[in-house]
């Protein structure tokens, strides 16, 4: 590798001297002129004739791209691929897309600004800038101001550059060698790096597997895995029969669904309706009757429900003399156990609902057999 010089540094003592030197050095047109100062100097951008950074344009383009990407994704998902109406809004409501569009715009723009500046404009993997290994660098980072003429092509004349800098008033001149620009991101390097990452992942995976499988003492985070409870469909040493799941104790009934009328209807005749005759109870009874009974027994309880009309069934006419004379308990028994073709309602009506239906049936019967004294006005 030939020792071609890369740039020539001229050192100045004050920022003013530097600023005055810039036009003279630029006029010599020996290479690109760059300044290195310990702090930003106002107006040096204009003096050096720096081009406008392309970063702003890149950020704008990527920001707009981010907004469009977010809009496209959301539109595709919400309006085309899987349209679901949420909150009564049309699937393609742009208002709902705006917050995500805003965030993705900011994300794209800031990433472009940060990464674009570091990698595209500052050429980040290039660590060894020649100025950093110059003798003058300790001064440049403290109280000296350097102007560099940097090689633009092969025909760089370092002697002429050194002279131009001295003519412009530089106290010292230092010729820097070409930087070591041996390739950094070669395909070999990338492949080896990726291979290394893959191998590291493989080793880590095998180690983790071995440790968790063969050395259970070292298992990480076992609290979720081993909980002191019975699992469905799993064995357990707690019970004699070795099952985790146990049958309920014989005679267990679900709360609210007590089948109290378990004997014959005659036995149940003595049961007394525990519910008071209040407006709420009647409303509850009416609702339950409407749901479970009305379709056969009819809205009036006369056995002429809509199923009777459709299929010619013969459900009991609750207005018949036989049922008018029934005690409450026998009606309750029929609801719990069913009778003839009538299915048991125990599973569908809670105990309170059953007794409420009994009250309601009584009310239906009385309504069809009203006496004169029933018409007396009850004070509200």
């Amino acid at each position, binding site marked *: 590798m030939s020792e071609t010089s890369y740039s020539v540094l001229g050192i100045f003592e004050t920022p003013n001297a530097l600023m005055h030197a810039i036009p003279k050095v630029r006029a010599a047109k020996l290479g690109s002129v760059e300044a290195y100062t310990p702090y930003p100097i*106002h*107006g040096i951008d204009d003096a050096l004739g720096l081009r*406008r950074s392309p970063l*702003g344009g890149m950020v*704008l383009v990527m920001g707009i791209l981010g907004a469009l990407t977010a809009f496209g994704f959301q539109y595709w998902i919400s309006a085309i691929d899987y349209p679901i109406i949420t*909150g*009564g*809004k049309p699937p393609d409501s742009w*208002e*709902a897309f*705006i*917050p995500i569009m805003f965030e993705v715009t900011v994300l794209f723009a800031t990433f472009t600004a940060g990464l674009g500046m570091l990698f595209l404009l500052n050429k980040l993997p290039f660590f060894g800038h020649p100025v950093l290994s110059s003798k003058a660098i300790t001064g440049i980072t403290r109280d000296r101001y350097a102007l560099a003429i940097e090689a633009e092509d092969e025909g760089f004349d370092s002697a002429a550059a050194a002279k131009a800098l001295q003519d412009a008033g530089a106290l010292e001149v230092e010729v820097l060698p070409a930087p070591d620009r041996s390739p950094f991101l070669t395909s070999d390097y990338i492949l080896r790096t990726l291979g290394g990452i893959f191998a590291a992942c493989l080793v880590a995976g095998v180690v983790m597997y071995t440790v968790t499988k063969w050395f259970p003492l070292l298992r990480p985070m076992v609290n979720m895995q081993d909980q002191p409870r019975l699992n469905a469909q799993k064995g357990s040493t707690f019970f004699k029969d070795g099952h985790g799941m146990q049958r309920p104790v014989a005679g267990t009934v679900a709360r609210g669904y007590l089948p109290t009328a378990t004997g014959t209807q005659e036995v149940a005749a003595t049961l007394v309706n525990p519910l008071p005759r209040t407006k709420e109870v009647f409303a509850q009874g009416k609702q339950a009757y409407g749901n479970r009974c009305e379709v056969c027994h009819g809205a009036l309880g006369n056995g002429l429900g809509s199923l009777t009309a459709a299929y010619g069934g013969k459900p009991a006419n609750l207005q018949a003399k036989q049922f008018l004379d029934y005690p409450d308990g026998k009606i309750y028994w029929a609801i719990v156990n069913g009778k003839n073709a009538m299915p048991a309602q125990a599973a569908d009506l809670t105990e309170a609902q059953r007794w409420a239906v009994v009250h309601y049936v009584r009310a239906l019967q009385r309504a069809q057999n009203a006496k004169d004294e029933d018409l007396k006005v009850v004070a509200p």
Partner: protein
Amino acid sequence: MTQNNKNATLLWSAVALGALGVLATYFVAGHARFWANWVLWFILMFTLGLGALFIVALEHLVSARWSVPIRRIPERIATLLLPAIPVGLIALCALPVLYPGSRPEAAHHPILAGKAFWLSLPFFSVRTLLAFGLCLLGLAVLVGGSLKQDTTKDPAFNFRARKFAPAFMAIFALVVTLIAFDWISGLTPEWYSDIFGVYVFAGAFLSGLAATTLSVLYLQERDRLEGVRGDHLYNLGAFLFAFTVFWSYIGFAQYMLMWYANFPDEVIYYKVRLAGSWRIITIALAAMHFILPFFALVTRAAKKDPRRLRRVAFLMLSAHILDMYWLIFPVLGGSPRFAWPELSFALFFLGGILLWLRGAMEKGEDMPTGDPFLREGLEFRL
């Protein structure tokens, strides 16, 4: 006759012509329309003055140096609060006409009856007077003190202003919220939005900034602000740019939450403004208040370019007028009204505002010459 005198004659004739139209509006076009216009221009004058005063206070609050050379401009614009106060006092007559909370029917309204005391004419007037008083206090301390410093050259003013500025920020928040809730949101008292005060603040600050930018450019053209350069303009441009985004953020946040929740008492506000011709105005507002200025100012060079800045500042002022029109005029019902009454009001008040500002720009020094930080401000570089 010089150009200056010609302009004055033009403005005075605009005011005179406008005054005729204003009077005619009262007697011909109906009281509601007259008062809607009057309230609109009161709000515009007040927000412009208050926004400018906010800029002055902001400088003192953060001890900004770059803005010292142009501080006299927002100080002069802030004096618009002085004529805005009598206009606002006259606007109190609009309460029984326009504001449902001040009408006798309100007593039988299930919601308004609950807020009866708050919305009642006496308490409403007390709040407005309180807001005016606080504004006068801010004006006296910040602007009056600064004008006095021109002769005394006493740096004590800077310390006093810096101590007063944090208090003024609280005062400012109170005043802008009171005015926004009472005078604008009060037109539809069943509707409410917590963020409404911030929305009006964003518009007020933007209008103050735009007027400051226009005045700075106007004076610069006449070589009266020597030393004010692109770096100062850049900061004004950056402020304008930032706060167009802020305004849209607040405006859209308010809209989106109401759109999502879809409560009838909230969405009715937007339902009215998205129906018929109002829809066009809503879209135009989004374009003028956000999209156009955003892209006009997005590049670095644009924020320094006087021609670009002047156009954008003019656009922002027009957008602020449209914004307040959009907030206030739906109270009249039906489609947006714009005819000779609105034109006469615009002639009368715009002419008046320009005359006032013109007078203010002629008085005293163009820069706070007594401020010890003036030199530092003039040397400001980006």
